């Protein structure tokens, strides 16, 4: 090999190293948000509309694994459309078990809600989704109570169940609801689920729900707080509708040009969050105080078809 060619290759190698270093520096500068990582805090990730089995889902999953090195989250909430287009054993494998294998192997638990592309009967009985055979259920982590709803089928049974569960939760813990269809969304394809909102938002207000996470629109959006409640749409952890966010006065922060996922830490009365793209770029971040809800009603009812547990 000639010395000229050798030095050319060295120059190219040096340029590549410098470019990578530059990219690392840029990434470090862009992602200057720091989670407090307080002792005893509740840490989780949120993903929605992810179960395609495509390359983008795997890339987001890899980024989640990388993020967990600096933000050790314990569990993941799934905002629906967990398994697209068929729910045979291969589908569960390619659209869930393989992309999230490093997280599953590390003991990270997943808590699924049902989207319109999910087969309820199969997914609720699938152990790794932690639904325990129920279409809607509740679980507690630290000082946070999660209410997982089936927004495809908000029937009187579920409404009565939600009413009772929110009532019984009292007002000590954070209350976080998550389900597939967003009550507020600037997505051009679907947008806000007005009918659903008319039915369940009064309960959220009455019982002091603090934050709501949804998917369905294949974008990321943090909505301006509505009636004292924080709303997030995270529907782009596998799917993406490029440019689908309309300009509305609902949006605090929106992102519709790449896939994303969310990281959340709740410590005391503060919620810290960071939304990252599949390349690890920070899309949104912030610290949100818990809004004080003083009103607490009492409308008792009962339901044996759903699950409630302390984790």
């Amino acid at each position, binding site marked *: 090999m000639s010395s000229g060619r050798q030095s050319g290759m060295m120059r190219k190698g040096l340029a590549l190293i410098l470019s990578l270093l530059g990219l690392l520096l840029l990434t470090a500068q862009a992602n200057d948000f720091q989670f407090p990582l307080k002792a005893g805090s509740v840490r989780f990730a949120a993903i929605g509309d992810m179960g395609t089995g495509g390359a983008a889902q795997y890339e987001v999953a890899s980024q989640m694994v990388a993020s967990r090195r600096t933000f050790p989250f314990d569990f993941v909430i799934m905002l629906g459309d967990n398994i697209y287009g068929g729910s045979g*054993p291969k589908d569960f494998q390619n659209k869930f078990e393989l992309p999230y294998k490093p997280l599953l192997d590390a003991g990270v638990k997943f808590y699924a809600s049902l989207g319109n592309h999910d087969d309820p009967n199969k997914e609720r009985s699938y152990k790794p989704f932690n639904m325990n055979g129920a279409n809607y259920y509740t679980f507690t982590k630290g000082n946070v109570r999660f209410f997982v709803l089936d927004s495809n089928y908000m029937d009187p049974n579920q409404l*009565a169940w939600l009413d009772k569960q929110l009532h019984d939760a009292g007002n000590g813990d954070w209350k976080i609801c998550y389900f597939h269809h967003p009550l507020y969304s600037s997505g051009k394809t679907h947008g806000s689920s007005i009918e659903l909102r008319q039915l369940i938002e*009064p309960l959220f207000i009455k019982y002091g729900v603090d934050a709501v996470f949804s998917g369905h629109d294949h974008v990321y959006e943090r909505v301006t707080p509505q009636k004292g409640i924080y709303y997030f749409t995270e529907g782009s952890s596998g799917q993406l509708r490029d440019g689908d966010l309309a300009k509305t006065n609902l949006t605090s922060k929106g992102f519709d040009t790449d896939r994303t996922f969310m990281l959340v830490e709740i410590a005391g009365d503060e919620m810290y969050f960071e939304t990252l793209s599949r390349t690890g770029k920070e899309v949104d971040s912030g610290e949100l105080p818990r809004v004080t809800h003083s009103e607490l009603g009492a409308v008792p009812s009962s339901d044996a078809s759903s699950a409630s547990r302390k984790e």
Partner: protein
Amino acid sequence: MRTKLHSARAMHTLLLVGLLAGGWARALPGQGLANQSQPKADPGFEEFLDRVNTYVRLHNSLDSTLPKLKTTDRPEVITAHERALAIKIGEARPTARPGDIFTRRARIAFRRAIRSEFQGSDGNAARTTIRQGEPLKEIHLRPNEIYPEGAPFTTVPPTLLLKFPKLPDTVAYRIVGRDLVLLDVKGNVVVDVMHEAIP
């Protein structure tokens, strides 16, 4: 700002009280059979619920002959149970046809409820809900057919569900195209269908 917030909350509380008074909260959830105290004024709904209860008894007796399905990390076990139940249901109802449960009187009651929903002030919202749920088109299911693998589940407008008789967990209403389908949830099999029900 605070005053506005309080009045908004008061309005929502009033809305909820209205809904409760409207009847849905009277339903006792988690019952094995359909609640007979649901929209009972209409004899068509009564007849429908009687047929549903008969079906649920059949379902329970067939399901009890299969190994109990527990949560599992093996999806093939869930699929096998679902298929086995669907086969048993098909064998037990070999002559099932549209109208067995959505009887003529029931269809009149359902069409009345649907018309009031879609022609009322909430009509546009109900149409939007169906559209947002990515409706299936050009599919007409028949009793004993399996719900198509991989097909999305169209969102049933929640305000429409409030106008329909409350169902036990065994079965659920589904909208497929313009058809209203009664689906056996655990068997993923069509129990009955009411064609062209949705305007």
